[in-house]
């Protein structure tokens, strides 16, 4: 092997403190590029996941229980709560012109006291008409839910085969959903037969805020997709105009707040990445320049022995390449160690949907961060590499005496 190939590694090993500092700098750069990109992507994936989970154009809820913020806290932010309206409203809404798909949902919040295993939002759906929950539940559970079968969100501490008790009713965990990065990760899903039994049980135990309801005669919300040829706006206005005591909300409007927050957070992270990248580039440029300037005598000696200008530049570039490779991998691993275990903490802190992309995508981001960091390092060192390749060997050798 050429010594000029081994020399960069030997030089790095020969000065461990300098090497450690430069690796640390590149690791920070890589951490910011990888971590920041993964954060932005996770937020976007979370929002996309939420959009697809909502899966309807319009959500209709009882007017008095559904100021927009209340609705959002339950549907989007994972707060527990419930409200009901007469089933007759559902029939009235269903008769509105321009409705393509329609299905009712039923909400119940379990209590944190002894009657219930967990305090969660329970969402009931009608398997015959549902078009929002069934499609993604099918990925985790392909069978028909039986009475007292439930499907739990990914963040709940319950597993297939477990029995959870809600208002004294034992329910079997039939499946656990994949992570969505949304409030649905802390919810429990079941069919309308089961949730009606649970609502009845909560009424029997006098633990339901609504005292005089008949579970068979109420629904919590109605989800609608506009039929072809009708605009969402037309259907929404029609419902709000003709069906009393309900509020029809466009689901896109519900998540517009989240979308705006996400855009804000993404912008901040993007700016941070750019600032850190520029700062990192300048710091690396100075660090490499100082490191190489300290060793210019050694480079002059190599010229004396017969190294060409290109060989000197190559040695410097290889050193930077090795440093940046080590640093960028360290930074990416550090990013994974921070983001993977703490994604739920980040989600709660930001109060935004947060879903990590697939392992393949993450691997792609690691690769991109490594390549970008190496490129940054190479650009930063190229100035020093050029300068050292054009050194005045004689002048440096004389300067030592």
């Amino acid at each position: 092997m050429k010594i000029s190939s081994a020399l960069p590694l030997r030089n790095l090993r020969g000065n461990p403190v300098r090497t450690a500092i430069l690796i640390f700098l590149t690791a920070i750069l890589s951490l910011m590029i990888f971590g920041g990109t993964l954060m932005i992507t996770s937020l976007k994936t979370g929002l996309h996941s939420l959009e697809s989970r909502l899966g309807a154009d319009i959500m209709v809820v009882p007017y008095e229980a559904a100021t927009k913020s209340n609705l959002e806290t339950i549907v989007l932010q994972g707060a527990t709560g419930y409200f009901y309206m007469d089933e007759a409203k559902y029939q009235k809404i269903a008769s509105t012109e321009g409705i393509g798909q329609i299905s009712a949902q039923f909400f119940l919040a379990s209590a944190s006291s002894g009657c219930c295993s967990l305090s969660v939002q329970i969402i009931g759906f009608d398997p015959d008409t549902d078009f929002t929950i069934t499609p993604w539940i099918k990925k985790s559970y392909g069978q028909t839910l039986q009475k007292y079968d439930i499907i739990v969100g990914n963040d709940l501490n319950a597993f297939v085969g477990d029995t959870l008790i809600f208002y004294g009713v034992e329910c079997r965990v039939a499946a656990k959903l994949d992570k969505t990065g949304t409030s649905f990760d802390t919810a429990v899903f079941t069919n309308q037969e089961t949730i009606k039994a649970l609502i009845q049980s909560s009424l029997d135990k006098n633990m339901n805020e609504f005292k005089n309801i008949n579970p068979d005669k109420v629904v919590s919300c109605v989800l609608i997709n506009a039929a072809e040829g009708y605009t969402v706006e037309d259907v929404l206005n029609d419902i709000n105009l003709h069906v009393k005591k309900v509020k029809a909300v466009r689901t896109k409007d519900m998540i517009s707040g989240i979308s705006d927050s996400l855009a804000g957070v993404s912008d901040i992270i993007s700016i941070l990445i750019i600032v850190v990248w520029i700062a990192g580039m300048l710091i690396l440029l100075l660090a490499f320049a100082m490191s190489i300037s300290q060793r210019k005598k050694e480079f002059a000696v190599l010229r004396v022995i017969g190294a060409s200008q290109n060989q000197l530049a190559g040695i410097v570039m290889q050193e930077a390449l090795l440093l940046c490779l080590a640093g960028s991998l360290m930074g990416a691993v550090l990013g994974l160690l921070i983001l993977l275990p703490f994604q739920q903490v980040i989600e709660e802190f930001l109060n935004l949907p947060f879903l990590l992309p697939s392992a393949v995508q993450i691997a792609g981001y690691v690769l991109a961060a490594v390549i970008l960091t190496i490129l940054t390092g190479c650009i930063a060192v190229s100035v020093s590499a050029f300068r050292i390749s054009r050194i005045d060997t004689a002048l440096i050798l004389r300067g030592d005496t």
Partner: protein
Amino acid sequence: MILKAEKLSKEFIRETKNTNRFCAVQETDFVLESGSFAVLTGRSGSGKSTFLHMLSGLMTPTSGRVLIDDKDIYQLPDQELSRFRNQHIGVIPQGQTALHSLTVLENICLPYTLYGEEAHETEALALLEKLEIAHLKTALPAELSGGELRRMAIARAFLRKPELILADEPTSDLDDQNTEIVFQFLRQAAQDGAAVFAVTHETNAAQYADRLFRMNAGQLQG
């Protein structure tokens, strides 16, 4: 091999009384043939090292040419000149010239390993024996004294058995005994067919040399 310098001069930009140019070496003609050992003496700052660096291809002259076997070395592209220097010229620079991440033996073998050739460790060890630093072959330069480092640089310059040896103060950190060893080395190299040129302050260098030169304010005399 024949080394020729034709009308070689070097000027530096430096503010002096009447001009902003300082002439380190005035127009000089010089010839050195194989088997000849030439010694250049002179006061500090007289232009000795500048002259040697120009001969070695490390400092572009202001005017004139350096010909090695009629090849104008400053007309060669950098890659070719570097390789030529590696294969044909052994330079012993001033001061400490070790690569600190390599051992003594690795430093000495650099002229070969720099271009991926076999290290020639046996020859390197033989040189270390002659220079009495064989026991330091695995040591790092930081562990060596100034004199030991000089001997290491000398061994490195000799390893390829170059046709031209250019030594700039090769004995500056050495005691009398080692100074004698080094000059005998240079003398022997000349007898073996190399063209040897040494810049030195040592007065007893003259007894080893075939030709003696003196540099006086940039003017080569002798």
